[in-house]
């Protein structure tokens, strides 16, 4: 059992970091092994924002291997070298935690595949997100713990999706935590609640097409699957609709891009989702209490039906 939540403001920005924190914290009983945020902040759109990790959180409950902090420093140094070699200039650098970094990069490219492959060729390094607006932040613990650790409650933006995880299919670590970046697409992220039963078949097929998987978490497949569909020319909505037949199992998932937010529910409607929709805000979560954390007044909500796909624009 995991919890997912998402919101999109249409025509305005808001404090989405704080809002999503409230929604995910309301769902913490659905799992607090890890919590992740995909936040779409207000930026000037000039530089890429790269969130990456050079190691793992090996705190209580983690299934990761303890490494000396000097290893993180060494990996960071190699990342910097690779960026310089590719002509990517680091405009701003933040090291929130010894293993977690945020770079603003001046880099002129539309194809992030080669870029990502080079950075991730460094053992222990994973790009959590890459985009002009997207920032994926994920770590062990509940929503408040992660929010406090990364100082997310001040982030202003248009939309966000997040995930409160109870680990069932893979380890308790950051690499298995949601959201997943839609590698190698700029600004695409995914969160998922459910289980996929044709994970390995799909994974092998996608790996043969050059896509990469960083974890053994079945949910990562959705991000890669949608990214591959978009790579082949499908729109976000088309890719999501194809996933209803392409993915076996039970699922409710959200996908977000720079300017849109979508949801899909499997054909058996086995996983919950409650949705609130108005002219200026769409908010959704695994349970109504997530929406209530930002809209305490009486509102009209509903459950999307089986096999339903919806996409909203900012």
């Amino acid at each position: 059992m995991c919890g997912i939540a998402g919101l999109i403001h249409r025509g305005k920005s808001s404090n989405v970091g704080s809002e999503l924190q409230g929604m995910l914290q309301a769902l913490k009983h659905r799992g607090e092994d890890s919590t992740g945020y995909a936040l779409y902040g207000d930026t000037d759109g000039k530089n890429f924002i790269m969130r990456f990790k050079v190691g793992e959180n090996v705190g209580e409950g983690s299934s990761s291997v303890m490494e000396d902090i000097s290893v993180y420093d060494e990996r960071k140094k190699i990342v910097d070298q690779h960026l310089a070699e590719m002509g990517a200039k680091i405009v701003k650098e933040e090291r929130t935690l010894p293993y977690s970094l945020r770079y603003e990069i001046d880099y002129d490219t539309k194809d992030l595949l080669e870029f990502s492959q080079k950075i991730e060729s460094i053992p222990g390094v994973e790009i959590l997100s890459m985009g002009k607006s997207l920032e994926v932040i994920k770590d062990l613990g509940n929503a408040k713990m992660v929010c406090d650790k990364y100082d997310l409650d001040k982030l202003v933006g248009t939309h966000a999706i997040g995930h409160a995880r109870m680990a069932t299919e893979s380890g308790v670590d950051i690499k298995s935590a949601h959201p997943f970046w839609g590698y190698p697409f700029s600004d695409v992220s995914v969160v998922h609640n459910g289980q996929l039963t044709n994970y390995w078949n799909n994974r092998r097929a996608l790996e043969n097409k050059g896509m990469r998987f960083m974890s053994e978490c079945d949910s990562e497949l959705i991000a890669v699957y949608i990214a591959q569909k978009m790579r082949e020319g499908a729109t976000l909505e088309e890719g999501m609709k194809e996933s209803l037949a392409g993915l076996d199992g039970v699922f409710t998932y959200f996908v977000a891009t720079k300017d849109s937010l979508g949801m899909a529910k499997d054909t058996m409607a086995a996983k919950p989702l409650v949705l609130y929709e108005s002219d200026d805000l769409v908010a959704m979560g695994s349970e109504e209490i997530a929406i209530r954390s930002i809209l305490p007044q009486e509102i009209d909500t509903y459950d999307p039906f089986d096999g339903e796909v919806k996409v909203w624009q900012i």
Partner: protein
Amino acid sequence: MANLKTSEKKSKSQSMGMHTEVLTGRTQQKFFNPDEAENFYYFGTYDVDFNKRTELDVKNMTAPEANKEIDNLMSQGYGTIVIKNPQGKHSLGVGILNKLNLIFEGSLGYFGMGSCDGPIVRINGRVGWSCAENLMAGKVVIEKNAGSCFGAAIRGGDLICKGSVGARTGIDMKGGTIIVGGDAGAFTGFMMQRGRIIILGDVGINLGDSMYDGTIFIGGEIGSYGSDAVDAELTPGDQDWLKRKLKVAEIGENFDVSKMKKIVAGKKLWNYDNLEPTEKKGAI
């Protein structure tokens, strides 16, 4: 083991199509006798006065605290309780075995009004998954939408949703009536064993999948039929009952019930229960 006689109609409920199976086993003859009602005592019930009314704000309460307070108010004789600010909390109003007028001014989360027997409940909002699960008797009215597993395993009573409901509505229901004013999701009536479901709008795929008995009435389009769910003739008796039920439920009063579709069990699964355990193993 109970004997199954499919051809014999023994009671009004059977002739009305509430169930068609006639059980003649020894345990089935020990039905509750209404004449002995005075000797029947339900632990944890109270004499309440419907005219004695109070309000309870549960905004800062947990679900156990709120439920305990409802019980406390009933013990003081309050027969009408208005719950303020439920705000989507889970498991509110569960286990009420009393006659009671209960009004929620807002929405409930999961498992609202579960395992109740007797209260008349109005929810002026929405409900989450598994609303009124295991309802034995009483009436629960939801003014807006409901989540999945609406009325799971109810044994009796009326469960009414004026909006739309999610998937698996009436799953495993064993009696009572579920009425939905809007649409319903996939697997409506999944494995239902008795009772009736009325959906005025459309339903999703696999309607009545593996239903054992009971009746489903659909006013709109059907996504697809589930295993062992078949069409049946809509009789004048059915239409009269539907009109009455919709009127009492304050829902779809002017709905043209003559155009509704009636779905029942194909009864291919019936013989399964007659088999000995070793034979059942072979049948699976």
